[in-house]
């Protein structure tokens, strides 16, 4: 339907991008491809390479190998100021000696636009990001939330082919952050701006992204829609990184019946097909806090040996219960309904969960 031939091409295409700093591998063969108007989150702990990848896309760093194409145009040898990708920096990097309007106009002058276009564009951005009335203030004279809006306005003013957000919400306090995330999500979808956001905050990734790429030690471990990566994590790392996940050490006691010993006299029974278990093998059982519930009697999975409630915390909409299983602990989070039976510290309880929601794997190599 579109006459623009580039519309069928991926907006951004990274192929096998790698980067080393001396002997340290920062990125290892990262590939991804984005559609126009898509919002992609690079999610991972600090040092996973997500910021390096962003800097390579912006042109502040060069990749050792691999190719970067934006709307079919190779960016590998294009200097940063000719890339047409706009970045919102973690500290916003607003020009302190320029007013809000001058900051927004900064990228317009090098584009040789006429004065009328420039002032129209400034006006449009002021309206779009609700900055009217602040145009002649200096960055030091506006609030943190407004500063972020100025940074966004300055980036969007140049009508970039792609927007990059580098931990752009981390300087805001929680309420403001969630408000801005909602607003920005609506704005970006309305403007159809292809966006990559880098974050270590999974809530932020879930709040904004159409797809999430989970990164770990320079690799993209999984890429997919938020629900997909949450419900079908491709690796233990992805599982552990998303949501809050319990990890229990266990020893396989009977492989045919899938009995795992968590501690002396305390066992879980899994359907035999749940995992290929070898007797005497050490395994980890991963299960999300919201997938576990409590029972007062042995259940289909928790067959013998009660756990002891050691902490009950009320969190508003949720309650958190910590159950001790021998020396190990399981954290349970469930809606705090008043109909829940009251559970006191020291109560003997059993766990109930769907074995399908568990992941049984060889323990990660201790690092």
């Amino acid at each position: 339907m579109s006459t623009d031939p580039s519309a069928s091409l991926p907006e951004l295409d990274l192929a096998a991008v790698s980067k080393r700093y001396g002997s340290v591998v920062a990125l290892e063969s990262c590939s991804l491809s984005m559609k126009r108007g898509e919002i992609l989150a690079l999610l991972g702990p600090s040092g996973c390479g997500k910021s390096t990848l962003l800097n390579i896309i912006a042109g502040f760093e060069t990749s050792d190998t691999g190719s970067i194409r934006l709307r079919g145009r190779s960016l590998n040898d294009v200097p940063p100021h000719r890339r047409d990708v706009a970045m919102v920096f973690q500290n916003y990097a607003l020009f302190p000696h320029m007013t809000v309007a001058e900051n927004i106009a900064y990228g317009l002058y090098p584009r040789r636009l006429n004065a009328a276009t420039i002032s129209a564009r400034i006006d449009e951005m002021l309206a779009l990001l609700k900055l009217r009335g602040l145009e002649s203030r200096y960055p030091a004279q506006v609030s943190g939330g407004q500063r972020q809006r100025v940074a966004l306005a300055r980036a969007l003013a140049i009508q970039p082919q792609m927007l990059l957000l580098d931990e752009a919400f981390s300087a805001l306090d929680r309420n403001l952050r969630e408000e801005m995330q909602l607003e920005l999500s609506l704005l970006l979808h309305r403007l159809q701006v292809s966006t990559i956001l880098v974050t270590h905050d999974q809530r932020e990734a879930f709040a904004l992204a159409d797809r999430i790429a989970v990164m770990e030690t320079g690799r993209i471990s999984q890429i997919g829609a938020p629900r997909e990566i949450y419900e079908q994590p491709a690796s233990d790392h992805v599982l552990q990184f998303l949501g809050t996940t319990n990890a229990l050490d266990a020893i396989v006691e009977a492989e045919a019946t899938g009995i795992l010993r968590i501690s002396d006299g305390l066992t879980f029974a899994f359907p035999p097909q749940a995992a290929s278990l070898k007797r005497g093998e050490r395994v980890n059982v991963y299960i999300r806090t919201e997938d576990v519930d409590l029972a007062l009697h042995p259940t289909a999975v928790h067959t013998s040996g009660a756990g002891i409630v050691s902490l009950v915390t009320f969190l508003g909409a949720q309650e958190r219960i910590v159950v001790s299983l021998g020396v190990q602990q399981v954290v349970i989070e469930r809606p705090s309904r008043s109909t829940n039976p009251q559970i006191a510290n020291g109560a003997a309880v059993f766990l109930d969960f769907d074995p399908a929601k568990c992941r049984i794997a060889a323990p990660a190599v201790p690092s």
Partner: protein
Amino acid sequence: MKLSRYAPWLWLLPAGALLIPFFLIPLGVVVRDSVYREDPVRFLLPDFTFASYARVLGDRYYLAVFGNTLLIALVISVTALIIALPFAQYVARRTGRQRALLLWIIYLPLYVSVIMRAFGWMVITADSGLINNALMSLGLIGQPIKLLYEVEGMTLAMLHRYLPLMIIPIVTTLQQLDGDLLKASANLGGSRWYGWRRIVLPMAIPGMVAGTQLVFAGVLSDYVLPSLTGTTRFAMVAPVIFYEAATNSAWATASAMGTLVLAVVALFLIISSLAVRRLMPWQRAVR
């Protein structure tokens, strides 16, 4: 309770103990002498008069001396600024050892007595000095260029003396420049030149003004280098003041000239500070 109100001022006591008797009082004496009457026998008579000012400002010789000095101060300030800005930018971008080494090179001349440096420049700029010998042996000139005891040699020596005072404040301001600002500039499509013009240059203004103030005031009151490397055919104000006071015993005239230099420096500081306020309205926003 009562002590705590005055306690912050106690920190100023050592500086005050030095400045008040040894700086402010002599300064007051100079200003007072400038309005006393000159007397051939008793040198100064306590008699209020602007006669010395009238003499200094009405005499073409004295006016030429002030003109010479202001011209040299201007030339050295501008030259120092042109040399210092790229150099400071280079230093500010270095890190670790390299920066320490470069800063040390800047500071090095300040560790050496100005007399030693003056003699050094005399060796370099003399008729049979380093520069002339080199140029002559290369066959570029037939006979020595007059440098020493000329305006040229003196300007060179003074430029060397005051250059560090221009570089250091600029390095300090440029070091405070957030590197992300230049990244942001490039990211928004700004070339290096555009980023330099719109970010580096305006942000360096406080350092440039501070450096110019130091250099300008320094050149205006320099005595040693004009005396040792300059010429009486292009007299500078500080040696002339010394001559009036020590040789002519014209203390009122000398005091009036000294007070005028002080006024020029004060005026310059006020004007340049006002200029900073005009050029950098954002500075007020930060505070």
